[in-house]
């Protein structure tokens, strides 16, 4: 069953072979919009977290700035000047955010929320709640760049899991995803994962079938993550470097 190119929680993910970053410069407005949506999905949490931690923006201000940043990026082609030979796209984007926030702070620009564009439907309340929980006890000067990367990885996995779920549910693969969800996604921090035998008893499956289902789901998820990574990278070299960082292996 082809899973590539499915929908992610209602969001379409553009072609996985072409770089999303290239697509933001496409002549076709629909292609540009889809690419832009993919970038927002991958990076909005990182941007919001960065604004909260590095720029010490209050939640409401960070939300406004994040919305404004993406709106202007789309309208004014912030990413057109990206050169894959000079830096990873993630680094470039973070630099763009820093410049944008610095300008906003200096008051050199009067921010009109969204520049007239409709605000993006992003769950900032949940992001703020998770950020508060994740940074509880952390020093205020915690490495905001590391948080930026961490949130990016989290978004990458979340979107890939959502795509896997959408592609599996209601199909013969549903049981595979459900077993995967019970074993790999469900346990709360500090609680043990169910054993393969317990899962087998729960779903009426032999243990070997449980491991088969898990192997399938993990393999598909790995492929989806790599597809997203490839699409979100500015170059093949960047993709390989990101994949090596993420999975510790070189992509052949």
């Amino acid at each position, binding site marked *: 069953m082809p899973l590539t190119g499915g929908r992610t*929680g209602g969001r379409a993910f553009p072609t996985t072979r072409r770089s999303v970053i290239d697509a933001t410069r496409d002549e076709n407005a629909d292609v540009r919009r889809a690419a832009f949506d993919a970038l927002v999905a991958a990076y909005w949490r990182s941007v919001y977290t960065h604004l909260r931690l590095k720029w010490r923006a209050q939640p409401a201000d960070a939300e406004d700035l994040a919305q404004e940043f993406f709106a202007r990026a789309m309208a004014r082609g912030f990413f057109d000047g990206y050169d894959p030979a000079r830096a990873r796209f993630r680094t470039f984007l973070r630099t763009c955010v820093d410049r944008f926030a610095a300008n906003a702070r200096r008051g050199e620009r009067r921010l009109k929320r969204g520049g007239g564009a409709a605000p993006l439907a992003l*769950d900032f309340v*949940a*992001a703020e709640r*998770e950020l508060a929980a*994740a940074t509880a006890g952390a020093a205020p000067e915690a490495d905001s760049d590391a948080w930026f990367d961490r949130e990016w*990885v*989290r978004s990458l*996995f*979340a979107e890939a*899991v*959502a795509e896997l779920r959408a592609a599996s549910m209601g199909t013969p693969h549903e049981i595979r995803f459900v077993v995967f969800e019970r074993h*790999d*996604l469900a*346990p*709360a*921090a*500090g609680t043990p994962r169910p054993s393969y035998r317990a899962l087998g008893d729960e779903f009426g499956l032999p243990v*070997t079938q449980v*491991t*088969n289902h*898990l*192997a399938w789901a*993990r*393999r598909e*998820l*790995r492929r989806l*993550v790599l597809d997203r990574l490839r699409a979100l990278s500015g170059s093949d070299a960047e993709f390989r470097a990101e994949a*090596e960082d*993420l*999975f*510790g*292996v*070189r*992509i*052949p």
Partner: protein
Amino acid sequence: MTLPENVVAHLQEVLRAPDPPGERYMLHEPVGQGGMGTVYRASDRALGRDVAVKVLRGDVADAEAAVRLEREARILARLEHPGIVPVHDVGTLRDGRVYYVMKLVRGQRLQDFARGAGRSDVLRVVLRVCETVGFAHAHGVVHRDLKPANIMVGAFGEVLVLDWGIARVVGVGPAPDCTVPPPSPVSSQEAAAPPRDPETAPGTVLGTPGFMAPEQARGQPGLVDARTDVYGLGAILRAVVVGDTDGRDVPRPLAAIWTRAVSPEPGARYPSAADLASDITRFLDGQPVTAYREPFTERAGRLFRKYQTAIILVLTYLAVRLLFLVMRGF
């Protein structure tokens, strides 16, 4: 949707696990890490059992490392011995990395075992290691990375020598008394087309400081033979007997055994692992060891300790007899 941190961390870990082609093996958590590869616990779904899969680490996965791991699998496959983990399968991952499948062994590393065991138990484990290494030498294989961390002591007393990643197939050693024979007949195919040995380049140093023989540390592969492993065995013996202590209570004959084994000059060491094992056995049996010339007083003391019960019985008998004679006389 969002994912909690612990779920992301778990997914990253499971997706980092190599993905063997086909449906047979499913990898789980890492159970060991060496200089070249990572060992994972895995499910062999065809046979319904747990196995261990060693995969090249991503950061060292180059052509030379692949050759080395293949060699390791082939070497292990030809060394069928209870002290050597059997290899079941070998293959290549989708990303091109070589892996091999072996029996999953559970137990303690030697240094951990030694902390909770008596000296004689530790010495018997070292004896088993000597036997295993001697077997490998008899098949023309030198381990070259012997250290406590590469020795596993299983729950049922089994002793396994692990990590043959830098092992080397050697011919007849340079010294006439070296006991390493040419490779066994099963290696005839390899002899015809020997696998490239990335470790043979002069100047290349592979091994572990503290357990590596001087000729190995100097990067002189031409001088590596069975006595190189004898050095490693001696270093192991010293490490597990002395442990965290200052070693003052170690009997001199025992210290002499490892001192001879770790001689800087290969010719001054035991010529083979079997000779080293013989001396350890003699020590355990309370006999004089070849590595140590005993002074008369020490010899008398050793004999007394060895025959303590009999000597005390005879002396008691003589004392009673004398007392009896004296009493009768008066």
